[in-house]
């Protein structure tokens, strides 16, 4: 039986410049921040990031890793607007594909199911159709003849997610309130890496949660990293809540290069 345990550096070594990377979680909740920080420290560049965006987006904006962001929003939840993302947008340094939240889900789902697109009403009539010129509509082949958005598959080179528990074979467990779309990120990606608060023996997976919490299966995962505190400063309930003080420091560090350097040294290690 394959042992898929690996280190953070092993995961980063799998990434290449220009790749499309999907990151699980939602806003400032259960983001694989240990992996994100390692990417921020690396020499990687020109990445396309697909995310229900939080500090993963902001941190990789602030460290110049991103060429393009595909998202429905970027927010720190308790701080509604993500200041590092805003700075990158307002400086024009990053391209954004701003979708409806449901369109993003549909794009990942289409990729997961190996479909070219999935139809939806979401997006019709909105600016999304103009801002994302590659979007097309499709006419229902049935009697209703309804015109719908043909949301194209969002295929990922790599997916990164963070779970509460995992086993060494790549089964993952969420113990918090919401899986978000982490399974879809994994299913939409060619290579899938999961960090977890704790790696436990497979037979212990049901000790802390019911079978319904086992939503990431080993066929969806290529590598597992044990990462206690691996989502910090985002929340990872029930293991820990968001570190609001650290998040405030992070947000405040967008105010000046000096503030950013101080925060960067603290959160990422010495400036590279």
């Amino acid at each position, binding site marked *: 039986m394959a042992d898929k345990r690996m280190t953070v550096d092993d995961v980063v070594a799998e990434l290449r410049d220009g790749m499309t990377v999907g990151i699980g979680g*939602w806003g400032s909740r259960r983001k694989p921040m240990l992996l994100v920080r390692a990417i921020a420290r690396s020499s990687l560049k020109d990445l396309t990031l697909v995310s229900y*965006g939080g500090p993963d987006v902001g941190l990789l904006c602030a460290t110049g890793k991103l060429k393009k962001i595909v*998202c*429905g*929003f*970027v*927010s720190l939840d308790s701080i*509604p*607007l993500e200041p590092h*993302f*805003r700075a990158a*947008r*307002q*400086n*024009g340094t990053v*391209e*954004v594909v*701003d*979708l*409806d*939240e*449901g*369109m993003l*889900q549909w794009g990942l789902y289409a990729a997961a199911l190996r479909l070219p697109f999935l139809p*939806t*009403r*979401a*997006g*019709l*009539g*909105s*600016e*999304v159709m103009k*801002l994302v010129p590659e979007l097309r509509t499709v006419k229902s082949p049935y009697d*209703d*003849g*309804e*015109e719908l958005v043909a949301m194209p598959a969002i295929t990922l080179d790599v997916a990164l997610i963070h779970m509460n528990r995992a086993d060494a074979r790549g089964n993952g467990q969420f113990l918090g*309130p*919401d*899986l*978000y*779309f982490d399974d879809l990120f994994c299913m939409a990606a060619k290579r899938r890496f999961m960090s977890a608060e704790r790696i436990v023996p497979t037979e212990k997976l049901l000790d802390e949660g019911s079978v319904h919490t086992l939503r990431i299966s080993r066929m969806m995962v290529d590598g597992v990293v044990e990462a206690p505190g691996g989502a910090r400063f985002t929340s990872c309930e029930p293991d820990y809540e968001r570190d609001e003080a650290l998040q405030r420091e992070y947000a405040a560090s967008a105010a000046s290069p000096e503030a950013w350097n101080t925060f960067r040294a603290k959160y990422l290690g010495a400036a590279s």
Partner: protein
Amino acid sequence: MTDYSLDELCAVACAEAWRGDGEILASPIGVIPSIGARLAKETFAHDLLLTDGIASLVANTLPLGGSPKAKVVEGYAPYRTIFDIVWSGRRHVMMGASQIDRFGNQNIAFIGDPRRPKAQLLGMRGAPGNTINHPTSYFIPSHSTRSFVAKVDAVSGVGYDRAAALGPHGARFHHLRRVISNKGVFDFETPDHTMRLRSVHPGVKVEDVVAATGFTLVIPDKVEETRAPTAEELRLLRDVIDPTGLGKKELGA
């Protein structure tokens, strides 16, 4: 005559938006809409469903800002389920709007050039999908020509002109119910679905509303006053729903 504050008046006006909605999910975004939705459920719209903002449907009415009272959970509604509910139409959302125009096009995405915005805001969030799938209302706490504009910089939430352009199929689930601001209540119950002043808040003159609006509002011959909270509503607002006065803080009242 009972004394009440602007946030309480607005909360009642928000609550009124959900009147008659029946057994659907009420999704209030922000403090005053959240107070309003809980008030509606507690008074005249008992069948509404509400979430805790995380992933549970909560049956009992809890105060905003945390409570020693135990949550009575009646269902599970993670984001994926919420999206399904949106697309099934069993929902009425009340969102904010950085900008809104006379057809009810709403912008929460950005101000300025899309490639390099002057101000990056939230992004599209769920606004396109919400507005095309189920009833939508807006609460805008600071009514001015900066928020009520002739033309929005980006359309997140779809307005009536754009919905009409989609034809009868595309527009069939589109419905903008109310817009509530700190000056009055508005709707789109006009022949061409342009925004109409439905009522002014007590103490606000119609010309104040007109002056603070960047487009031509439809003004009925006789403008009603927004109804005042009842004594029972004030009791619920103060003792049960918002005992710590978060609504007041929100409106700077």
